[in-house]
């Protein structure tokens, strides 16, 4: 059964790379590039995992994460956050907001795959 992953990212080349990696594993990958409407898309599509960029046009990844955690429906939704800013303060903010996994760009493909796999299966078993 193909897991459903929603990728929220505005850099098209990065979207292309991650989509390639995850699709190859057999997961269904949807993409979205706007921050403002991201929340609605997540609620509508109910993915098993969200890969979330921090610097999005319209709304930052932190704000989206906070709102996800604030709602019962999405409180436990696994979220893998990616950021290019790479400051320790960002990691703290993300963890405070309830991120499931936090990764700094540029990443290695293996790391991303491992993280997504962990979140999809370990997290899924727990819930």
């Amino acid at each position, binding site marked *: 059964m193909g897991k459903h992953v929603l990728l929220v990212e*505005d*850099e*098209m*080349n*990065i979207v*292309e*790379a*991650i989509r*390639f*990696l995850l699709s*190859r594993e057999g997961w269904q990958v949807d993409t979205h*590039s706007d921050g403002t409407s991201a929340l609605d898309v997540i609620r509508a599509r109910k993915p098993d995992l969200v890969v979330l960029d921090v*610097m999005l*046009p319209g709304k930052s990844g932190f704000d989206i994460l906070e709102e996800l955690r604030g709602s019962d429906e999405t409180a436990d939704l696994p979220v893998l956050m990616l950021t*290019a*800013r*790479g*400051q320790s303060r960002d990691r703290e903010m993300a963890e405070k907001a309830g991120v499931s996994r936090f990764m*700094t*760009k*540029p*990443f*290695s*493909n293996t790391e991303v795959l491992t993280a997504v796999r962990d979140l999809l299966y370990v997290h899924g078993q727990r819930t």
Partner: protein
Amino acid sequence: MASLNVLVAVSLAYVALLFGVAFLAERAGMRGRAGWLLRSPLVYTLSLSIYCTAWTFYGAVGYAARSGLEYVTIYLGPSLVMVGWWWVLRRLVRIGRSHKVTSIADLISSRYGKSNGLAIVVTLMAVIGVTPYIALQLQSVTASLSIFAAGGLAGSSDDGAAQAAGFWIAVGLALFTVLFGTRNLNVNERQHGVVIAVAVEAVVKLIALLAVGAFVVWGIAGGVAETLARIDASDLGIWEMDGSRWAGLTFVSAAAFLCLPRMFQVMVVENDDERHLQIASWAFPLYLMLMSLFVVPIAVIGLDLLPAGSNPDFFVLSLPLSQGQDGLAMLSFLGGFSSATSMVIVATLALSTMVSNHVVMPVFLHLQQGGATQSGDVRHVVIMARRLSILTIIALGYIYYQISGGSSALAAIGLISFAGVAQFLPAMLGGIFWRGATGVGALVGLGIGFAVWVFTMLLPSFGPGAALSVSTFETGLWGIGWLRPQALFGIEGLDPTVHAVFWSLLLNAAGFVLVSLVTFPQPLERLQGAQFVNVFEHSGQTRGWQASVAESEDLMIMTQRILGAREAQRLFQMAAEAQGRAGYLPEPTAVFLQQLERELAGSVGGATAHAMISQIVGGAAVSVQDLLAVADESAQMLEYSNQLEAKSRELSRTAAQLREANNKLMMLSDQKDAFLSQISHELRTPMTSIRAFSEILRDTDGLGPMEKSKYANIIHVEAIRLTRLLDDLLDLSVLENGQVTLNQQTGRLVDLLDHAVATAEVSEARPITFRRRRLEETVMLHTDLDRLSQVFINLITNAQKYCGSDAPELRIEVSRPEGAVLVDFIDNGSGIPPESRDVMFEKFNRIGAEDGSGAGLGLAICREIMARLGGDVRYLEGTGGTAFRVTLPQSQAVAAQ
């Protein structure tokens, strides 16, 4: 019978004699000779005899004839002071010497913080109080002249001539006083010549009175026993004693003895040696006793022998005259003349010192504003002021004498004067014994006492209806019953003199004490108070500046400590040489001490230097001038403190500036963090794609050639993006730091725009239609053409990238308002929302950069370049699309060929 002319001649001769004596004494004193005589306790004691004026010489007999033994109170008061209150005198003398006091006004004002107001009040009170007394002397001399001329009977035909003589006597006295009192200006106001003259006069008046007495007892009555029998038989023997009057008069005499300006002059100012007081304490009462010895016999015999209606005030003169003893009468006249003249001279001298020092000089200095620095000038002014004061005071006395008409009995005038100056007593004694006494208290006490004295004694003395109306006497001032001048507060039945003395001094003392208790002394006043009250602890031995060689050594040691050994030795050796002495130890003369003090003051400050020298030389305790110097130094301290405060203010200002700078730094630091974060993002983003796709290419088997090519292309594009970003960052950094060197060239605007358009068309795939009017573009520019071209390329590529129109167009318009060159780039897109227009020139602000191809540095670079070129670039509003205007200053436009 001697004529008036003879008398005048004798008087003149006598005055000439006194003048000679005074002159010789002065000269001897200046040459340092005859010190044994000039500074002897005998002369000191005799000089005190100016207490015995014509009032005591003539008036005592009259007093006895009218009021019996009551005249004794006038002698009793001073005797009690000399014998019983010598410790008060000693304290006064010590204070006077150690503080270089010049008068009683000076004493009181010094004590109360050098208050000039107080000095003026005391001076004026003294002048008012003593003027009747001077008048009294003139009156007695004039009267004695007329009696002499009339052969023992007052009110003769020669009265007019005697009156005229009175005027010339006043003139003569004034001249004598001016000549001797103001010949030179001594620091300590001492007048040796005058003192000697006074002493001679004291001897003359004593001998005269004793001679008349002896003549009366042995020549007329026929022996001591017969005289006593006559006294017993007379009314005088059974005179009743009024206790309150006795006590009151004795007290007033004692107080006046201490407070009279002339007594203060001879007793304190002219005192050379404190030990003289010891001898005077018995010698002066002895003198007074001798003076009073024959008063009663003369009075009794005079009443017996002379016709009824004879003025008993002049029995001393009229008795010998009536017996044909012209020689004795002449001696008696000279005695009275001596009494009068010595009193007038010394009193006038003392008063003129007060007037010139406390009234004229302050006014003069105030008017001069800094004239005090011209010392020679001021000395001249002081002497002139003193001479004028003398003339004025004697003139006042003469006028008073003319107005009062010489009607009152001598003793009455004397008592008024005594009671007036006695008002100084509370302030003076309080000042030297009570540290709590304040200047305000002294002023209030003096004011009240003086007012009461004027109201109850001076004004009534002119008689009812003269100065005060009859109704005032009967029903009180303004009809208030308890303000009757001779029955204050409704207390009646007291003798008027006792009444006046009692109330004036009681209210004076009460006001002084009460106000002192409720007011606080000024700092200087407090210092002076402590100095005065503890004068014996402060001053040690009164040696003045007389010092021994041992002190020179001490001074040397002290000076070495401050100036260093070599400088001190040089100073002392020079001083010794100047004195004509060998070696290093000069005589510690006043001159040397002053010089030394100046030298030391340069190192340790004036007040400290003086205090140090005083410690070694002793004697001179801290004087008013010293205290003023201390006050000056305090003022300097205050100034330092002010400076410190200013410094402190400056520091807090600096601290505020530092805080501000720190805040700015913090802000900059935050900006730097944000910038780094942005750079990190901009670098990591292409890096992420590059890394992801390179890993895909490496790790993925079986990728089709299409995919391989696509992914390799992405890596390529991102690498270029990364390179451009780094180029832009470095470019911006150089521009922002101002390190850029402009390469000024001349070229045509149209060529620059052609180049920019061509470059943009090559680099970017997206086509855009350009609309230009080449004719307008034919402008010659002189500027950095490469940089300007960079700006144009940036703006054109921005339009290519972000113009949202389906058929993108870019209009390039050139205009030349007022010589400047404007180049507008206007596209047909949707424009930039107003809220973004301000921030779009900032770094990393990508407005609508959805394709991720720019780092948001382009406009920031454009802005920096235009700033360097002296122009600017800004968003042009109101065109519909996105529009930028580049402005070049007129100076860069070269006139078209």
